[in-house]
């Protein structure tokens, strides 16, 4: 669907994007992930044809964005960051204008506008002047604009930025439903967002691709070392026992009357096989008459994976040799 090859963009001496290559096949929802200034917007602008790359090529449905810009752009529905719109136009007027620009045939325009408004839930504001709309609505009009010509590829730059939690949920649901018919490429610096919407993530840092793959695989990049415990600790020794096995206590709640101890622990770097150590700990706890009520291993959040991948000076992760992490980057 879209293919980028050795994409680079330089502003004078500053290189915003360096040697970026990836491809997205039809029907995928792919997230561009990275902290602010990682080069996400520059990359999406190059994909949408707003910026020309300093080096490298972008192909959309086989059409080079620089050489056949009209064909490539027809296949793309692009929502720029912060969705800039003409404030003096009414919502339906604006969408009709955009539909005409995007070569939607005159007879189908009305229907296309209605469909886009329905999908992005702005139909109730159709006659409102855009300048009077709230940020959330404006964002959704931008989304409707991207949808109005029903293009196969959607490129959305921070589609949920500036929205309240309810609106964020709505936009996520919308993107989910769009994924059936469209290929979606979106950027975000909120990691849980990628976790919620995307099947695949491309992690950018300082203009370079530092990791790429299905979300699940990215999560596996870093095994969580945290364990939540709920113990009936009559002898009052569970904590020291766990600590002797290498589980450092992060937090604890003691209910004095019921002898229930709730603990959150993290394995120290000396522990190499976390699962084996957990097994050992449970056995020993049981042997020492501690009632094990709940043991929960935390799933690594993408945030943790992300910070591990994008730390400028990466501190070596104890459970992953440096060489192996290099492998993941490439």
């Amino acid at each position: 669907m879209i293919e980028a090859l050795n994409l680079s963009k330089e502003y004078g001496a500053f290189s915003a994007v360096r040697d970026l290559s990836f491809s997205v096949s039809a029907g995928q929802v792919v997230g561009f992930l990275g902290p602010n200034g990682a080069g996400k917007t520059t990359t999406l602008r190059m994909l949408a044809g707003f910026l020309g790359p300093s080096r490298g090529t972008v192909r959309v449905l086989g059409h080079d964005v620089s050489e056949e810009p009209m064909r490539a752009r027809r296949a793309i529905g692009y929502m720029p960051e912060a969705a800039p719109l003409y404030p003096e136009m009414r919502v339906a007027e604006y969408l009709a204008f955009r539909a005409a620009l995007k070569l939607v045939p005159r007879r189908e325009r009305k229907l296309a506008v209605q469909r886009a408004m329905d999908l992005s839930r702005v139909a109730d504001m159709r006659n409102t002047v855009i300048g009077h709309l709230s940020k959330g609505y404006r964002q959704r009009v931008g989304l409707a604009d991207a949808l109005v010509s029903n293009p196969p590829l959607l490129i959305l730059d921070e589609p949920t930025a500036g929205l309240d939690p309810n609106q964020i949920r709505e936009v996520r649901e919308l993107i989910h439903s769009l994924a059936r018919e469209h290929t979606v490429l979106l950027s975000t610096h909120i990691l849980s967002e990628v976790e919620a919407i995307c099947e695949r993530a491309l992690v950018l840092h300082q203009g370079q691709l530092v990791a790429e793959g299905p979300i699940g695989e990215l999560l596996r990049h870093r095994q969580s070392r945290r364990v939540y415990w709920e113990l009936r600790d009559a002898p009052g020794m569970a904590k020291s026992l766990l600590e002797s096995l290498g589980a450092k206590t992060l937090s604890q709640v003691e209910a004095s009357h019921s002898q229930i101890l709730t603990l959150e622990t993290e394995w120290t770097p000396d522990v190499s096989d976390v699962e084996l150590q957990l097994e050992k700990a449970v056995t020993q706890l049981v042997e020492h008459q501690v009632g094990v009520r709940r043991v929960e291993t935390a799933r690594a959040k993408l945030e943790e994976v992300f910070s591990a991948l994008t730390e400028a000076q990466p501190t070596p992760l104890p459970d992953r040799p440096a060489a192996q992490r290099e492998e993941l980057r490439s």
Partner: protein
Amino acid sequence: MTGFWAIYRRELWALWVTPVAWILLTTFLLLQGGVFYSIVLHFSGATELSFDNGPIESYFGQGSIFLLMTLLLMCPALSMRSFAEEQRSGTIEPLLTAPVRASAIVLGKYLATFTTYLLMWSPTLLYPVILRGTGVVDPWVVASSYLGLALLGAAYLAIGTLMSALTKSQLAALMLSVLLQFGIFVLGVGEYIFEPGPLHALCSHVSMLSHMEEFSKGIVDLRRIVFDLSLVILALFVTTEVVDSWRWS
């Protein structure tokens, strides 16, 4: 030229839906009405009339210093918005990622300002109609006068469109085009300063005063038309290149 009509219609609509065009129109018509009134007043007291110096010729010709001064402000004010505002608000991004060529965008925006310019002049068509009530009006003179005005406006607006593409600020675009147009105007005044020679020839070639002077007498000189149209084409061509170059900034 796909996309041209959509751009043209939106720009025209945007010019008239914001107060700018109406304020301009009101100011413009008040000024022109005043000028026309004083010219008519002058001629009503005159005892002798020469063949080629009636109120119409005065209005578009010798009196055209007033007319030029209003044009000097009106054209930049019409064109200042075109690209500066799109750049400032960021709407240039959805515009340039739509399947439209830069040439269609430039032409659509330019012709929308030009249409507005012509619409602003259209009420003044009443003046010759009023004059016909009391005397003879040569329709050829009226037609050539308006042709001269249209050409002058076309050139000014093209310059203004280019200036608007060069900056993000409408005010800067306004100042730049006023400055440039005033420069051309002053260069034209050189016609009355220099002795006949190459400098004099250059100055009289670009002179807006003698431009209108000739058209107001019904003299349609091809050189004038070529000069104005080449200004339009040059300015619009450079604007298209500027818009295309944003991709590579």
